């Protein structure tokens, strides 16, 4: 389980994951905020529908892609949370396209 080691997390704001409200420190990036809330599956891969979540946290691996405010493919470890942000698990299923 991820958790904060600071007793005082500073100012909190509200973001929504799949409609669920989460109060998170305003300095966090999206990936960190979700991990701390116990969310580890950020998306499903396009080809094999595998579940994926953040791996590198430094903007290199692109496994933390997620839908933020209606836009797919947002690199959540590089985007700061903002109040009212609506986040959804990303599902880009292309594998069935030609069948």
């Amino acid at each position, binding site marked *: *389980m991820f*958790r904060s080691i600071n007793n005082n997390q500073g100012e909190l704001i509200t973001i929504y994951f799949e409609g669920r409200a989460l109060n998170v420190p305003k*300095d966090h990036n999206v990936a960190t905020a979700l991990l701390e809330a116990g969310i580890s599956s950020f998306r499903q891969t396009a080809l094999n529908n595998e579940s994926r979540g953040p*791996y590198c946290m430094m903007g*290199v691996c*692109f496994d933390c892609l997620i839908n933020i405010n209606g836009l797919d493919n947002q690199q959540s470890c590089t985007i700061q949370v903002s109040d009212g942000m609506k986040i959804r698990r990303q599902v880009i299923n292309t594998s069935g396209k030609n069948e």
Partner: protein
Amino acid sequence: MNSTEYDIIIIGAGPAGMSAAALADHHKASVLILDENCAPGGQIYRAIEKNQKGDNEWLGQSHQEGLPLVEAFRRSRVNYQHSTKVWHLSSAKVVHYSVNGKSHSAQGKQILVATGAQERPFPLLGWTLNGVMSAGAAQILLKESGVVCEDAVFVGTGPLLYLIAHQYISAGIPIKAIIDTTPRGNYLRALRYSFGALKNAKSILQGWCWKREIIKSGTLYISNIGDVRINGSDSVASVEYCQKGKWKNLNCKHVFLHQGVAPELNTSLSAGCDKSWNERQACWTIDVDQYGQSSVEGISVAGDASSIAGGVAAAQRGSIAALNMLYTLNLISSSDREALSKPFKKKLSKEMNARPFIDALFKPHLRYRVPQDSRTIVCRCEEVTLAQIKESINVGCKGPSQLKSFTRCGMGPCQGRLCGLSVTEILTKELGVREEQVGYYNIRPPIKPVTLAELASLDGS
């Protein structure tokens, strides 16, 4: 294209970039420095200003060594753009970058690539499961957000792995186990270099101290293992390791992997810089002369972006590169360049003395660089397995470019950063040739993915 001109454009504000920027500014060069992070420090000194205030002893001594660097950098008058993504560097020294969704370009008379290192790929069976992250990621969560993970299993080798585990233990965070994959033979091989290493005993001793304290803390410490893999369907269920021919199971939800770092190649390669295979570090390094000048005129590469030598060395190499660029720009004389670079060279050579020892000790075993199990995913983005790569080799694939066309391996958004090294080494092994013959992906722009709107918004054209 009309773009702003600078004497020196620096990509990356880690120790290499910051040192170079401050020094170049001191000698009256106009400097633009671009960095993706929201604050200076690079990887080693990430969020250092933020952590300065709190009570963060767990970050350790070396983290604090960065403070003077950042302070000097902050005092300089360089144009520092944070949260800025550089997505193109041309051999004509034009840099394209984007801030807040808008693109800009700038022309440098000299360019310094100081984009640092990234963690090596660690292609184990199960490394794409939810709950598996790199140990560097664990450290970033800790440094940047004060977020930790209890009861995780750390797997791998390298000073950074011990450092992070040590930081966890100092902060009182329980670790379920450390599975050390350092090959047993490495200790003997490293001994050969111990004489040189003694000249920089401090850095060697520090590693030992971390390790000793980790073991002393009572954390389960597993070494001399033959193989390791991660089980689970969507998320991690357990780590399995093979010891003396027997597989043992360790239930857990989180795994942190690490087996060393390697240079960020994409920026230098996309500008056309030459590279060579470095057998000692088992990775590609960018060819530079003693001043950091690459094979492309006017483009220098310093710090871990050229070859791995650590944060202290990066700061020295950044300064030396800056002095050479200043000389090329006619802002200092050649004798100034020599005189001023002396102290940096001295400190650098002390750092480099320990390098062969560290490299030999922590060189990851081939079996963890070239996966054994054919089901292992090699390219995470395009979900390409070792089996698919082998099949392509059977159809006649001779190199990374062809492999890309046959399997899409390396074609995803990470642009080969998490599979490139593995692919070079897999092909080398399968084809029975040298790494130099196999080569690396052809790196093409953009260096980082960029939206069509950002491309369309390019100013001045």
